């Protein structure tokens, strides 16, 4: 009788073992570069520390960072800015993204080219998008100010980046330009998965173009739009480069989101403990918001 080969992976009973073996490198790496750092940052948020060394004796446990955070007007201001930005950018991206998708979903000559053009900003790195818009929003010779003056909407050149209200809109417009192609691509995929039979049947029943949109396109698009919406919100919540390079969160912290506040507390003021607390709260908000928004649909996200 032959020896029992414990590690004969070809044996059906050992099949699941191979699965775990293949998964091991990913689990180890993710543990090392995501889970372990995440545990460190939660730990940091519960210590009163500035710039600690890892492996040094741990500072005493304290919730001071969180108490300070919830008592700070800067934090609530950052929440407000984040919320405003999320609403404006999500609405803008959704409207632009869905309408471009509906448009290129029509059959016409040059449609492939139009599809490529409509989603091109997806391919422009965020920092490069900021270079473009920083110049468009330049306070001396920027195109946007000139346009507003020419159209009679503004008396003089607007100092976009140094005026609180204007800076917010400069950030929002840049983010919409960068963010809507994602919505467009996702919506187009959703549209193309709707069987044409549905439309034909509706036409036979005498439904006009608006009724077909309202009763066929929209309901069937909803699941895709739901997931897309959450992903856009998460992106705005966590974005760093656009705001940091365009306005640095200023002026007067008028464009400082939670993400920017986390970063500046850590690498501007070297308050690692406090910064981690801001970051952990941001993560909790992100997780709770997505669970609430998606509800039972959460599974669709992964």
């Amino acid at each position, binding site marked *: 009788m032959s020896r029992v080969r414990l590690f004969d992976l070809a044996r059906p009973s050992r099949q699941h073992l191979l699965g775990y073996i*293949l998964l091991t*490198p990913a689990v180890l790496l993710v543990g090392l570069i995501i889970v372990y750092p*995440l545990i460190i940052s939660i730990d*940091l948020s519960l210590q009163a520390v500035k710039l600690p060394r890892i492996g040094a004796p741990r500072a005493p446990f304290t919730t001071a960072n969180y108490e300070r955070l919830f008592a700070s007007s800067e934090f609530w201001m950052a929440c407000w800015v984040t919320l405003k930005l999320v609403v404006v950018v999500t609405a803008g991206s959704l409207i632009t993204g869905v309408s471009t998708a509906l*448009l290129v979903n029509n059959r016409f000559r040059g449609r492939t080219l139009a599809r490529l053009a409509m989603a091109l900003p997806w391919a422009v*790195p965020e920092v490069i998008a900021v270079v473009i818009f920083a110049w468009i929003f330049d306070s001396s010779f920027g195109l946007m100010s000139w346009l507003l003056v020419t159209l009679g909407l503004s008396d003089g050149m607007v100092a976009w980046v140094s005026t609180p209200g204007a800076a917010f809109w400069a950030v929002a417009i840049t983010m919409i330009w960068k963010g809507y192609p994602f919505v467009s*691509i996702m919506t187009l995929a959703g549209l193309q998965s709707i069987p044409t039979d549905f439309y034909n049947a509706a036409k036979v029943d005498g439904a006009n173009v608006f009724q077909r949109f309202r009763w066929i396109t929209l309901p069937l698009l909803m699941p895709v739009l739901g997931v897309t919406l959450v992903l856009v919100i998460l992106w705005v919540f966590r974005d*760093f480069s656009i705001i940091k390079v365009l306005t640095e969160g200023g002026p007067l912290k008028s464009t400082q989101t939670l993400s920017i506040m986390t970063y500046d507390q*850590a690498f501007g003021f070297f308050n690692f403990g406090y910064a981690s607390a801001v970051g952990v709260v941001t993560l909790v908000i992100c997780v709770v918001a997505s669970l609430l928004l998606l509800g039972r649909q959460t599974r669709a*996200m992964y």
Partner: protein
Amino acid sequence: MNRTPLQSLALYGTVVLLAALILFPVYWLLVTAVSTSADLSQLPPSFWPDEAQWGTFAKVWEERPIPLWLLNSMLAAIGSVTLSMVVSVLAGYALSRFTIRGGHSLGLFILTAKMLPATLLVIPLFSIFRNFGMIGSLWTLVLAHSTLIIPFTTWMLKGYFDTIPRELEQAAMVDGCSPMGAMVRVVLPVATPGLAATSLYAFVLSWADYAYARTFLVNAPDSWTANLGITTMRGEYSTDWNEISAAAVFVAVPIIVIYLFLERYLVGGLTAGAEK
């Protein structure tokens, strides 16, 4: 679908108008790059310079360390994409073919990983890299970019493997292949387009990073990536907009070229297993 000429006109008109509006910022980047400083400090702005200064591209390429920045971005991307792809191919295959206990919680975990703000993760990563004396080295980016890439690529690849029939491997195993052999010799070759698209998508994720590069490499100009380098071209008081725009074109072009190849695979990438 038959349209009346009027409907056709409206459709084409809208498409052209919207495309022009969307592409205008990219056009403006090019115009700015080939304008003189004098052109750029006048109002009304000129929408095409009298004499296009194509030499600005050569000037910026020679006077600024753009080749170095691009090389660094490339190295960070190749390193992180290679690392991420090796572990994600194995993991994606495992998740597609085997019943893994705890697979559901693993999915939830990946979902949370996608929600992690980089500005939170960068704090402990900085502490860890500082302990190991890695600050200033491109290796920090290889690891940090993998945190961005792996959650996406694992599920993207699982999705691709799901579309490949299991009968392929079963046939190979009947012919005497080991399970690993069946994966390497039969499944991976079939999955090549998916692997290529996933790698390109991962490349884009790495190339776009600014937060990690800025934090780990800001004091090491020799390691600056393209995105980090370009932000240093903005002066505190004045900026040579034509030069920074020309540099920006160099940084954007590789990704735009990839996008043109990737576009039809993009949905798979963006949803990363979102369907079903």
